[in-house]
């Protein structure tokens, strides 16, 4: 009984941490592909997500068909935006990560203000299908139904991504191009088209995440920045390119943001970054001492 009351208040945060972590994974999925796997630093990722979010806000009317429509439109729009980024990332611009950062940050700045100009400075309301817009009872606590749905969506996405990257020829080409684009070209495949494909696919993922995640991390002037930052954290913590690593990282970040905050509210403002710096530093040390074949 006593133990029960001690654990009970943390039950919902822990569950929420899972759902939130999975949302982070979905939001970061596009960036995993782009930066983690293909090595293209796309700082406009958050903007692609925001495109999906605004689409959801504009199209969702509380019914299921509108969800499908929003998903379709959001994915198409974000894919197009991803392809646009790829078009701007010519060979010159893509020559290294820092120039990529410069260019995509520019796209993010400009895209962000265009979105705000189009949709206004306020956070628009998002209406999810009525069946999901409520709370359900979990172990005697109320919990938002929509968040539970995320567990399924994220699991499917993680599996698909893993298969695509590890098992398909396309996935191998993408990884090969990171190592040596010229040799990929010598195999008869255009590295430029790989770049376009990756950014478009990342855009599609971000768009889907934006539509589906809109009820939780909703569209607004800040969305792009916060999604980008969280995604970067998750991707880097996940070890760049490993799907399982990214999933675990997302879950860990989710728990820190919920359970960690519930356990130590006073430390909340420091918790996130302190943990991240510590983990990365420890892991970097691990890598530095790991063997290397010369």
């Amino acid at each position, binding site marked *: 009984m006593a133990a029960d009351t001690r654990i009970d208040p943390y039950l919902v945060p822990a569950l929420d941490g899972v759902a939130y972590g999975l949302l982070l994974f979905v939001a970061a999925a596009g960036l995993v592909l782009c930066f983690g796997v293909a090595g293209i630093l796309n700082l406009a990722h958050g903007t692609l997500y925001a495109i999906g979010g605004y689409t959801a806000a504009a199209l969702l009317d509380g019914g299921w068909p509108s969800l499908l429509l929003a998903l379709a439109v959001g994915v198409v729009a974000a894919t197009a935006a991803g392809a646009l980024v790829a078009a701007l990332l010519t060979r010159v611009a893509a*020559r*290294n990560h820092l120039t990529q950062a410069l260019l995509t*940050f520019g796209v993010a700045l400009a895209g962000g203000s265009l979105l705000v100009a189009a949709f206004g400075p306020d956070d628009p309301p998002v209406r999810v299908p009525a069946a999901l817009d409520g709370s359900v009872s979990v172990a005697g606590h109320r919990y938002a139904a929509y968040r539970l749905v995320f567990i399924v969506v994220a699991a499917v996405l993680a599996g698909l991504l893993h298969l695509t990257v590890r098992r398909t020829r396309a996935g191998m080409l993408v990884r090969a191009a990171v190592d040596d684009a010229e040799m990929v070209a010598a195999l008869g495949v255009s590295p430029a088209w790989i770049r376009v494909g990756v950014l478009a696919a990342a855009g599609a993922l971000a768009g889907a995440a934006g539509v589906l995640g809109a009820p939780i991390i909703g569209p607004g002037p800040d969305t792009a920045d916060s999604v980008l930052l969280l995604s970067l954290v998750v991707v880097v913590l996940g070890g760049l390119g490993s799907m399982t690593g990214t999933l675990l990282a997302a879950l860990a970040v989710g728990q820190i943001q919920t359970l960690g905050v519930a356990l130590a509210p006073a430390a909340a403002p420091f918790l996130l*970054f302190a943990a991240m710096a510590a983990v990365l530093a420890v892991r970097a040390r691990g890598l530095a001492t790991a*063997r290397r074949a010369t």
Partner: protein
Amino acid sequence: MRQEAVRALRRGVAVLVLAGLLLAPWAVDDYTAALLARTLALGLVGVSVALLTGVAGLPTLGQTAPYAAGAYASAVLGSRLSDVGVVHLGVAAAAGAALAAATVPLVVSARGVVVLMITLAVGELVVTLVGRWRSVTGGTDGLAGVPPVRPLWGLPVLATDRARYLYTLVVVAVLVAAVLLVLRTRVGLLLRAGRDDEARLRASGHRVSAQVAGVHVAAGAVAGAAGSLLVVAQQFISPADFGFDTSALLLLGVVIGGTASVGGALVGAAIVIAGRDWLFGVLPGYAPLVLGVAFVVTVHLLPGDGHRPPAVRGRLLPGLPARPPDPAAERPAPTGARA
């Protein structure tokens, strides 16, 4: 032949810029002088970012941390000690160096994008701390009414925008010259070598970790000194001066300036920051749009450097370990991010 011409051209431009900067306060109004002073301070932080990012190959988003440490040390501690600028500079540089030294264990073995994220975290932590330590830093509202300083013992206090600007200019010029001089010695050579291939440097018997730690602390000191200049230029500091967007713009400015070039970093950072400040004034509401488009255009105008991209230590995307580390180490520990 062509290279010499380019070098001569560059030298000419540098002289022109310097002359322009010296004469500027008599040619422009107070607003522009104040803007220039602030910009120069940020340009100096840009120099420290370039020192790490371009010269040593450790891309950083966290130079705002020693910058903030220097600024607050100068405003709080320096003001109590004396009203002499060089004392403030010393205190600020020491504070910046101390903060950088404290974070050396975090940075020293990380490379590439991991450094980027660790330094980002350090920067955010420092800003959070500054925002909450109200008794000393004035909290999120900042520290207003910092008393003016005199550059040296016996000189009058800096009361006008023009005087403040000239003081900033002199200090920045001296510090940048010092950095350039040091980089011309073997220190610069070793840093560039480390950026290319660290393992080879070790195989030649160099202590790479000590070298990384050293440049990190030195860059911290430069950023700290810049913090003191910000206090002079602006007479007000708040955590907002040291936020993530400042770091990001500085890094981008350094990229525009040519990553590995100290002078370029100063100019690049200054252009980006001044451009933003100026745009906020003249194009209210459209500044981000214009800035964004400007970035996109700039990338395509940047001079290409032949075949090989300038190296970042271990590239931004570090190679995988030769052998997968054991699963326990691979599991990411809990962390978070700013939303």
